[in-house]
């Protein structure tokens, strides 16, 4: 039905365009008028249209406000309430200004359309008036700035010491959360340690050893391959392989440059063992959380509209946002009478082909439910079987292609 309507509108529009171009021909044939002399009828018509448009514009605006003005469910975070209040305040001001200014513009235009027997007033300036309308926006802006900055200051201040820290990690095209586990310390992580089963690149002594060994293995295999096939390989191919070896060596060097740190008396290389990696973001209600964002490839943005929160994720530069969730998912479902409702974190910085589908479910629950959920999660290093297996690399003999880098090899293996 809607589609039919739209098609109808389109057809009418096309016809209208054609008809209107014919108007051109007509007006040429009544050629005793000049284009630059706007007839009284035309002046009046356009003046009236200004009024008609104003009314339509205002009604349209009001309809939109009424129908869509309730733009989001109530804020589910503490600062969100302040943000919404500030928003309401600002919207009131700009809406009033919108109606006043547009109203004045269209009504004045209507009222003073051209009449031959009248002369415009020769009015150059009026210092008192101009002073007044510099002062009014000045004062309004002062209020808006002060109110805005107070709200901003509150929401961006440092997180309290007992805030729950959670890492939120973005890559094309999904989100992952990391909880620090019992020890309360995040294991050290580095992008050089990333494999398909270690999205964060968490460093543990075992992982490090596996990584280094596998790179060593790849290097010597590639070298052996070149040695063996020298006669058959083109110079370019050899160059490519040597470049790969160089890169693997650099990779290894960067790994060896990583140092172990101490945090709260815990080695950051062992702290990672009990970290919890999750594909959902669970938050305990009423507890301040500090979300720490990182990205591994391009910019993304963690947008949490229900919490009135957003922060870009930047490769190489961790960013933060603190907030205190105040309404559990369950409560919100009841409030909205929508049993399927879920909070959501969506990506809001264009990041590639499926940017429009890069999201993570957010669950706000009671502290007990949260604790239980955390308990049920697998730890990064399973307690029973500590040693990760050594990944086998694709054999260069079987394929003509170059050996894969350790990271890709592990991807292939999973």
């Amino acid at each position: 039905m809607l589609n039919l309507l739209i098609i109808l509108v389109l057809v009418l529009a096309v016809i209208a365009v054609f008809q209107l171009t014919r108007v051109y021909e007509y007006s040429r044939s009544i050629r005793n008028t000049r284009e630059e002399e706007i007839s009284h009828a035309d002046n009046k018509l356009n003046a009236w249209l200004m009024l008609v448009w104003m009314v339509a514009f205002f009604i349209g605006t009001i309809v939109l406000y009424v129908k869509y003005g309730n733009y989001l469910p109530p804020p589910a975070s503490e600062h969100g309430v302040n943000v919404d209040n500030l928003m309401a305040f600002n919207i009131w001001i700009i809406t009033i200004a919108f109606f006043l200014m547009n109203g004045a513009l269209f009504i004045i235009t209507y009222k003073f359309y051209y009449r031959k027997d009248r002369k415009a007033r020769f009015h150059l300036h009026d210092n008192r008036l101009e002073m007044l309308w510099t002062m009014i926006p000045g004062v309004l802006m002062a209020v808006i700035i002060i109110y805005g900055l107070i709200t901003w200051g509150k929401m961006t201040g440092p997180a309290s010491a007992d805030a729950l820290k959670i890492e939120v990690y973005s890559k094309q095209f999904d989100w992952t959360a990391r909880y620090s586990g019992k020890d309360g310390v995040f294991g050290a992580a580095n992008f050089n340690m990333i494999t398909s089963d270690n999205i964060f690149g968490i460093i543990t002594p075992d992982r490090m050893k596996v990584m280094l060994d596998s790179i060593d293995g790849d290097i010597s295999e590639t070298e052996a391959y070149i040695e063996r096939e020298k006669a058959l390989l083109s110079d370019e191919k050899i160059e490519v392989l040597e470049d790969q070896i160089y890169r693997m060596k650099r990779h290894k060097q960067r790994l060896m440059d990583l140092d172990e740190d101490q945090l709260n008396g815990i080695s950051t290389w062992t702290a990672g063992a009990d970290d919890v990696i999750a594909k959902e973001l669970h938050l305990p209600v009423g507890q301040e959380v500090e979300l720490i964002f990182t990205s591994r490839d391009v910019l993304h943005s963690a947008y949490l509209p229900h919490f009135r929160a957003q922060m870009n994720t930047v490769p190489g530069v961790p960013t933060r946002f603190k907030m205190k969730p105040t309404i559990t998912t369950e409560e919100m479902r009841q409030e909205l009478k929508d049993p399927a409702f879920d909070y959501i974190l969506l990506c809001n910085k264009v990041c590639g082909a499926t940017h429009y589908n890069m999201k993570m479910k957010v669950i706000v629950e009671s502290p007990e439910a949260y604790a239980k959920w955390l308990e049920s999660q697998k730890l990064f290093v399973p307690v029973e079987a500590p040693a990760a297996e050594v990944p086998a690399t694709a054999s260069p003999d079987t394929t003509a292609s170059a050996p894969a880098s350790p990271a890709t090899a592990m991807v292939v293996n999973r």
Partner: protein
Amino acid sequence: MAHAHDTHHDGHAHHHKESWISKYVFSQDHKMISKQFLVTAIFMGVIAVTLSVLFRLQLGWNGQSFGILNALLGDRWAPNGVLSSNAYLALVTIHGTIMVFFVLTGGLSGTFANLLIPLQIGARDMASGFLNMLSYWFFFTSSVIMVASLFVETGAASGGWTIYPPLSALPDAMPGSGLGMTLWLISMVIFVASSLLAGLNYIVTIINLRTKGMKMTRLPLTVWALFVTAILGVLSFPVLVSCVVLLLMDRGFGTAFYLSDIYIGGQPLDVTGGSPLLFQHLFWFLGHPEVYIVLLPALGISSEIISTNARKPIFGYKAMVGSILAIGFLSFIVWGHHMYVTGMNPFLGSVFVFTTLLIAIPSAVKAFNYITTLYQGNIRMTPGMLFSIGLVSTFVTGGLTGIILADSALDVNVHDTYFVVAHFHIVMGMSAIFGMLAGVYHWFPKMYGRMMNTKLGFAHFWLTLVCGFGVFFPMHFVGMAGSPRRYYAYTEFPFLQWVEDLQPIISTFAIVGGLAQLLFLFNFFHSIWFGQKAPANPWGSNTLEWTTPVKPGHGNWPGALPEVHRWAYDYSNPEHEEDFVPQTVPLKAGEHAH
């Protein structure tokens, strides 16, 4: 036009026998260059509008098959008539790039600075006709490269017109970051060269070549606006070049200005220490002044047209000039309002909130002055006037939502949503475009010696106004509900579905609005050849361009240059019989200048 050539020979020796090439192609005459800019910009505008209509089809009727998409874009980009998501991003990016840079920067300034600066200050031509010509041909070249990038195998640049790295730096990150992005960057470097050549020329011309009596305080507001615009461009575009060159180096030479700790394509990259935020600072140091580079000429044009057609002096000329200067200055210290959610220090954010909201004051002054100029005027509803009045409405409407975006605490929730798209389209996509269209209708007689059809102009205005608001006004609500921009579809998010029924309505307005531009195209091209012949001063205007012959030759005035005795806004001056007093009319005994 030969007669114009013969009669003045003071200092102009280079225009005896013009070949077709030197007259129409490599012309050094500012008026011809202006027309070249305009026609190129119209052509680019048609492309950009078409692109927007194409991707609006996807947004309005997600997943539905459209034969036209497949026919225009082929199987790779629109298999089965459904736009692919990569193609969607490419179209959005090139649409935005063309609109901002090619239509509203090169096109708007190029057309009207070239046409109006020499004519309104009483100069024979730009300070350097040769540089002026080069500036057009650089613009042309960069336009060709940008359009050509649409046809690249891997697709055009797709990271948005702001091309933030690392996305734009890593060909592995998306297909559009391959050759398409390289072409985008090259095109942009050439574009900036064009802008700089042009801008320097405008500044030098305005400072040095004003005719006798044309004091700075008597300049029409168009020239003031174009002057400040040129200064903004000359100060900010070089920063874009360095920003772009660093990006080219990151892409091609293994540097790491913008890159750090990146793992992509199954490998960690050997880059550390760069910062993607550096790019954003550099980009927006240009990017924010850029939006005023787009807007100020439109404001200048509309001031002139409103005063002329209200038959009333512009209200508060000094305040208008002061506001232009204040906006120009402030526009350099507000760029950070694009970066509130990048992790920038919140205190720095506060500073930008403060400076940004300050701009509201001179902007409000301008809006009040426009409205007061209309008040008690005698308003002639020419098409140019209608578009100028439309500009005031859109400038006010779009400016007000800027207050929300400037407030960092609020921006957090609407940043990069359709609210932003609504805001910048109403100020740039409507206000600045209205200014440009107003200028075309108003100065067409000067450019082509003929009149455009007025009735078609009315229809064009009303359809454009209604459709423009029909497209962009509902977007505020789509955005406040949480719909991010640069999304190919919203199907994945149940909480956004309730605003999705606005999408087909928006798209319908977009299609009708796009078609309405055919009226303009028809009117424009038809009138160039068949329009009514124009009189010398069709609008009863005071400024100097209307004292030239209908079709001024090279050198503009046959004989001596006009001498200026008064400001440009003596409309309905009670001391004079006529309701306008051209700037060349000497003061009467006892009359004092304003």
